[in-house]
């Protein structure tokens, strides 16, 4: 898969929602079928950790493994269909000026930070605490139990043919964005990643911008 850049014609002035999400904070929002979500990497090299749920049945949620298997590719870009655990498309990526996005690397947690970096890193803020806190705001039953493997928009986790895996500097840059169209009513849960221990945010987490259009 080459890093193909696909621009969008959508006008931010016509968006029904336009909001900045600071690093270390999250965003929970329901998209109606057909609506389009744009996530903008405002300052570059920021990881936007994102989960998607079928809004009418949140036990049917984004499945990283089914999505990678179905497209026979690790990386997400324009044309990728984001499949649910039931195998139905939740969203499709319709534009992408970054070129590829990760869905293998998962989200950071305070517990995984103790394993990856040092046992004394337990106080550092992490995505999974943002996810579980926001999940409690959903009027339905949504909790840590529902936190599955996410997408890391703008993040770069290259895999070698020999089976090596590493976290690299992002291939994103200021103003790059990804756009997704909802194939059904979809619940979006974003954690704007606060990780300071690896290059996924260039060691300097920065804000993202989210925009929603009706079509």
């Amino acid at each position, binding site marked *: *898969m*080459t890093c193909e850049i696909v621009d969008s014609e959508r006008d931010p002035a016509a968006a029904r929602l336009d909001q900045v999400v600071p690093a270390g904070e999250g965003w929970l929002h329901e998209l109606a079928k057909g609506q389009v979500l744009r996530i903008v990497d405002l300052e570059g090299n920021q990881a936007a950790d994102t989960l998607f749920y079928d809004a009418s049945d949140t*036990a*049917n949620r984004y*499945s*990283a*493994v*089914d999505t*990678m*298997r179905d497209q*026979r*590719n*690790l*990386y997400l870009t324009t044309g990728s269909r984001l499949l649910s*655990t039931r*195998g139905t498309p939740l969203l499709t990526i319709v534009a992408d000026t970054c070129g*590829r996005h990760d869905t*293998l*690397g*998962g*989200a950071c*947690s305070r*517990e*995984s930070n*103790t*394993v*990856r970096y*040092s*046992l004394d890193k337990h106080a550092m803020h992490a995505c*999974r605490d943002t996810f579980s806190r926001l999940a409690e705001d959903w009027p339905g039953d949504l909790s*840590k*139990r*529902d*936190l*599955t*493997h996410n997408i890391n928009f703008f993040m770069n*986790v290259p*895999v*070698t*043919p020999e*089976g*090596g*895996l*590493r*976290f690299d500097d992002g291939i994103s840059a200021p103003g790059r964005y990804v756009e997704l169209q909802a194939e059904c009513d979809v619940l979006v849960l974003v954690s704007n990643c606060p990780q300071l221990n690896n290059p996924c945010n260039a060691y300097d987490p920065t804000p993202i911008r989210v925009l929603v259009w009706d079509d």
Partner: protein
Amino acid sequence: MGSASDALPGLRFRTTLEPGEGWSHGLKRGSRLRITDVDGGANVSAMFFNADLPVERYNMPDTLKGQHTFFLTRGNVLYSDMGRVLVSITEDSCGWHDTVTGHSTPETVRQGFGGDRYQEARNDYHRNGRDSFLQELAKWGLGRRDWMANVNFFSKVVADDGGGLTWVAGHAKPGAQVELRAEMNVLVVLNSTPHPLAAPGPYPASRVSLEVLDAGPLAEDDVCRTSCPQNGRAFANTERYFL
């Protein structure tokens, strides 16, 4: 494989899965599960949970990024989402186990193998991983909300430089074995349904032997504990959990 009467030190019990069969078991801390591909060509899709509190479960991304690997083999451990070790891979004659491409589904089995129904095929019907996992999880009060990435023992999937994924034919040899040591009380849920990217053809007729054995005490220089500093810290977290 021999019969249950064969002398095998520390053997607690042994069972054999028919092709595509599902199984689940509470594997106690301090025991081992030995999985053998009896006939060759098997795939064993498996999920792992903390049996005492199943909201803690195997986490594929944490496992891969913590050990900087795209596959699993001897010396690797399976991390839970809480920074602890569920099971260690203490022996492996196979060298590569996939954990990235999920399980078979009704669609992959129909496209790959025909999808024979029970009505015609009776108990040789073509079982799939999704249905098997849901049936087995239900027996422990678990379901779709507990659904996470699985391991595919005996299966190899490689990625090219562009991220393209290829299933490697002929990887699972007759007699191939992998051994897992439980570092917590672990609920193991598995099935021998075909790998979702396996080449089309006849439904794989591979039997899988499962043996539960005693495990010795964990040595300070244990290969899984010492294979990287991350694993040492995950073992420290695990030991603290049982204090």
